[in-house]
Each structure stands twice: as structure tokens, then as C-alpha cells.
């Protein structure tokens, strides 16, 4: 059984009186341990697909299974639980909370999961050390560079040991140097067996991926391993 099974997935948004189709029948399987790059022109529906996969949004039609569980028929509460425990989201604009420390940011998914205080503290410290920020535990994210922020965000995404990492243009706001830092971490994570789906515009960053999917206008155009 594949980790992710998507069949005939459609998504349309209602704009005024009309339904605007954004995803027009996606079929896709992702196996455990894959590092998938998702590419395509702006507006083709990559983020929409990622959001549905990440349980931030619901499909309009079709089926999407994560570990065999149909995401289309879950309550809000269950979707929140899956976001918390199965998904590690990494955003283009980091989405960290500026008024609390890096350590607290990384602890937050575990706090929401009600992990014991000392356990989550130890794990957050360990994760921040593993992305090279062991010396920035008590800093606020707002005092960090973009590359450092994205490393905090990756540490946070790993907090509850998710089944899949979803990264939507994680290097989109970063310079070359930070981009290669982030990609090193991504490759390392994949090397440890983590499943990653990453949206990117930069062909360079797909070098460590074992599969590249091209999207166009809400459909999959090419799927190359």
C-alpha cells in the first residue's frame, strides 16, 4: 500500500456565481521514502494540491488516502489531529510565531499533542541542534536570517515525527547559500527514510529528488522518476 493514494482528485473554488476548477482530476501515488519534487508554472495548482494533502483544505471530488485513511470524510477535529501527528508542513514564508522563542516554536506541535514537558523540551533541543541551531534556542525567530528561520521551521515540522514532510517552495525566499543549506538538510532527512514532497521552481534543487512531477493547469503533465 502506497503512503499517499490520490485518484481523480478535483478541487474548485467558488468565485462569485461560478465554480472555478483548479485541480482537474489528479491521479497520484507516493510511496514511503520517496523525495518528490512538484513543479509547474505559477497558478497551476501546486499549493492547492499540497494544502489538500496537508489537510488544510478539503477536496471537491475524488479520493485522497493517507496511510489508507480517506481524508475527504474526516471531521475538522480529525483533520487537525492528522496535521498535528502525520504531517510536517514547511512553508515558503516560514510561518513561525515571532513573540515566542525558537525552542517554544519547535515545542508547539508537541504542546498541542500534550506531550510531557520535559520530553518535548529535550526533543525540541535535539531537533534544533540537528539543524545547526543549538546555540539559538532562546532567540526569537524574528532575530534570525531567512535560512535560519527555515531551519527552525523544519525542526518544528519534525517535532511529532510525521509520516510525510510537505514543503511548499521552502527555498522560495532564500538566497543561494541558504538554499543549499536547506537542501542539504532535506537530502539528509530523505536519507534517514523520510518521505518528502517539495514544490519548487528551481531545477537545481531537484537534483537530490528521486522523482519530479510536472503540473500544468490543474493536471499532471509528466511524472518522471
Amino acid at each position, binding site marked *: 500500500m502506497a503512503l499517499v493514494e490520490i485518484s481523480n482528485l478535483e478541487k474548485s473554488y467558488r468565485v462569485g456565481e461560478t465554480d472555478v476548477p483548479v485541480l482537474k482530476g489528479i491521479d497520484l501515488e507516493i510511496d514511503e521514502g520517496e523525495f518528490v519534487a512538484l513543479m509547474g508554472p505559477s497558478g497551476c495548482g501546486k499549493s492547492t494540491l499540497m494544502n489538500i494533502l496537508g489537510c488544510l483544505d478539503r477536496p471537491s471530488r475524488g479520493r485522497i488516502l493517507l496511510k489508507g485513511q480517506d481524508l475527504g470524510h474526516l471531521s*475538522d477535529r480529525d483533520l487537525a489531529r492528522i496535521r498535528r501527528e502525520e504531517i510536517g508542513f514547511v512553508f515558503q514564508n516560514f510561518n513561525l510565531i515571532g*513573540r515566542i522563542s525558537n525552542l517554544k516554536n519547535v515545542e508547539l506541535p508537541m504542546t498541542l499533542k500534550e506531550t510531557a514537558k520535559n520530553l518535548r523540551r529535550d526533543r525540541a533541543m535535539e531537533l534544533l541542534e540537528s539543524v545547526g541551531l543549538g546555540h539559538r534556542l532562546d532567540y526569537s525567530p524574528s532575530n534570525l536570517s531567512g535560512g535560519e528561520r527555515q531551519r527552525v521551521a523544519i525542526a518544528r515540522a519534525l517535532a511529532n515525527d510525521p509520516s510525510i514532510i510537505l514543503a511548499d517552495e521552502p527555498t522560495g525566499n532564500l538566497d543561494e547559500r541558504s538554499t543549499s543549506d536547506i537542501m542539504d538538510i532535506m537530502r539528509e532527512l530523505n536519507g534517514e527514510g523520510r518521505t518528502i514532497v517539495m514544490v519548487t521552481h528551481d531545477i537545481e534543487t531537484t537534483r537530490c529528488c528521486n522523482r519530479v512531477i510536472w503540473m500544468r493547469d490543474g493536471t499532471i503533465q509528466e511524472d518522471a522518476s
Partner: protein
Amino acid sequence: MRPDDMLEYVLSSFRSDWRRAFMSSLGIIIGVISIVALLSVGQGLYGGVSEQFGDMDMDLISVRPGSEMVMGPGPGSRPVLSSAEPAEFDHKDVKIVENVLGVDAVYPLKTARALLSFRGDNSSVNIVGISPENHDDMKDSVARGRFLTGSDYKAAVVSSDVAENSFRMKISPGNQIRVYSADKSRYMDLKVVGVLEEDEDPSYASNDGIYVSHRAMKEFLDSENYYYDSIIVRARDSAEVEVVAEKVEKALSRTHRNEAYSVEAMTTIFESVLEVLNMIKYALAGIGSISLVVGAIGISNVMMLTVKERTHEIGVMKAIGATTWDVRALYLLDAGMLGLVSSLVGILLGTLVSNFVGSVAMLPMEVTAQSVALGLLFGVSITTVAGIYPANKAAVLDPIEALRGE
């Protein structure tokens, strides 16, 4: 999310945004101050008045001609037709009342305003005609000199207030005083035989009077018809006072069938006053509650702004797995904590305010456990209720939309 983590999160948001916390609590603080202060001002008023009434003799009954009832109908007061003539009481009525079972003493009184002249100084006083031989109770209430006797004619006893405070020179037994009628058409010279102790008063009504015999009073007023304007009756047993009042009423009704008069136990009057004061106390607390409600609207508004400002943060929380309930609980707790802290501050300041008012107004102020509890209860519950709407707004935010809003 566990409750202790929620609390920590809320407290950290207060710390990072104390100005907002302060602004939103201001209304609640003021509301709680007013509840606590007003309740204790009410309580103080109540206490002050009951203290004053506490001096009053609880075994007294007041009989007055005329149909005005001091505090509305109560036991012992007599409903009369408004067309009825006021009753005219004289010494025969005193005899009737003296013979009522349970009556200990009867004090017929006649009061008038007069101008008192002493060594070139003038002062307006009450001059009260009394029956000296009835006032066994006043024998021990004389500070200097003696009380009037039945055989005194142009003699007066002066209250402590008039003797000590109304003239440049203090009035002493043996002094001559002159009283003028209110229109200054007549006067009478009197010899002071005694000065009363402070707060002692044979008329049981005011303690700024001078007291003479009815014989002297009749001559001073120079009127054809001399009737008493009140008869104070002392019951033998203060527990029986209302029963005695009814008996007095019945006895008088035989000779004053269609005339207007009232018979009231002082305790009845006292109870009505306390009742009114109690109402005032809760009316004041009501005003406090209104300011709380206004405060709550303020809190709700500030929280709406907070939720708007924190939209992105709420989006992040939801994206990494916070449930709708987590977010709702966080913001309700935010409101509840604001309410708790502001109520405590309000209670503290309210106590200071009421102590200050108490010392200025010289009322025995009392911040009771009841008013503290009311302040706390209202403060916390009203803020929490005010937080419901903003907390819901936060809880149902769509994470994608919320994250876009940076």
C-alpha cells in the same frame, strides 16, 4: 493542549502585549471599583443610619394629629379620610393614654420656633413645652443644675448643643435668657435651671432645643387654644410596643372618632428607613453593574482587535494541528484571566476608594466579603462572556486564509 500550557501561552501573550491587556482591562477595573465602592458606601450609609437609630429608644410610640403618615401605612398607623379634621389633643387625652395597659409614661409636647437672646447674641432654636412631672427619665440626664419640676413657671432647661455651641458665652444654670416669638411680637424672660447632657432630649426628636413647662409655653404662644402637637408614649416593654400602639390608638378613637391622627411605633419608622436604605444600596450596585457591562463591551472590542492582529499566529497554530476547541479555549482563558486580574485590581482600588469616602463622609465603611465576592463573580463572568464572540471568531478562522494574511 493541556490547561497549564494554555495558561502559560495566555500569560506570555499578556507579557508580550501588556498595553493591550491594560487597555482592555480598564473598563472592567472601573466597573469592579464601582461595584465594591458603591456597595460599601451603601453598607456604610446603612450602618451609619442604624447606628444613629440605635441610640433611639425602641419602646417609644409617637401620637400626632393630622393625616400625614411619616413612612406610609404600617402597624399602628391609622388610615383616615383626607377630609377629616386633625385631632386636637389636650390633657384629657394624656389621661386616657396614661390609663392604657402597658403604657409606662406619656410625654405631651408642644414645639415652636423661637429666637433665643442671651447677652446680646441671638440664635434660632426650638422651644418645647413639656410636662416636667412626667419626665422621670430625665432626672439623670442633667449635666449641670437640675431638671424642671411641676412647680417651675418661667424656668427653662437648655440642651447641651444650645448651651455650649450657639452663643459666644456658654449658658449656665442661673443665667437669664429671653425668647422672642418667631414674628418677634412677644417675648418672655426665662431663668435657666439646668443644662442637659449631650444627646439628651426630652422631646425625642431634636437636640437643639430649650425646654419649658406647658404653663410657660401657653403664655409664650398667647393662643386661645393650646393643643399638643405630639404625644410621645413609652411602652413598659419594648417587645410589646406595637401591641401597645394599637391599644393607644383604640383608646383615642373613642373621643376622636372622625378626626385625623396617627399612632406609630418608632421601630416601624426605623424599619421603613432601613428598607429604603437597603434599596439604595442595591441601586448603587446596579449602577456598578452597568459600568461593568460597558467595560465588557470594551473588552470584547479590544479582543476583536487582538484576534485580527493575531490572525496569522492563529493560522499557524491551526496549521500545525491546533483544534477549533484549542483556539477557542485559549481566547476564553485569555478573557477569563483578564477578568480575574482586573477584578482583583478593582477590588483593591475599590477598597481604597471606599475607605477614603468613608473617612471623608465619616461613615463606618465596610467592604464586606459579599461585595468582594460579587465584584469577583461579576468581573470574571462578564469578561468571559464578553470573550465568547471574539474567541469564536478566532476558532473558526480558516488556516489557509489566516496564513495568507501576513
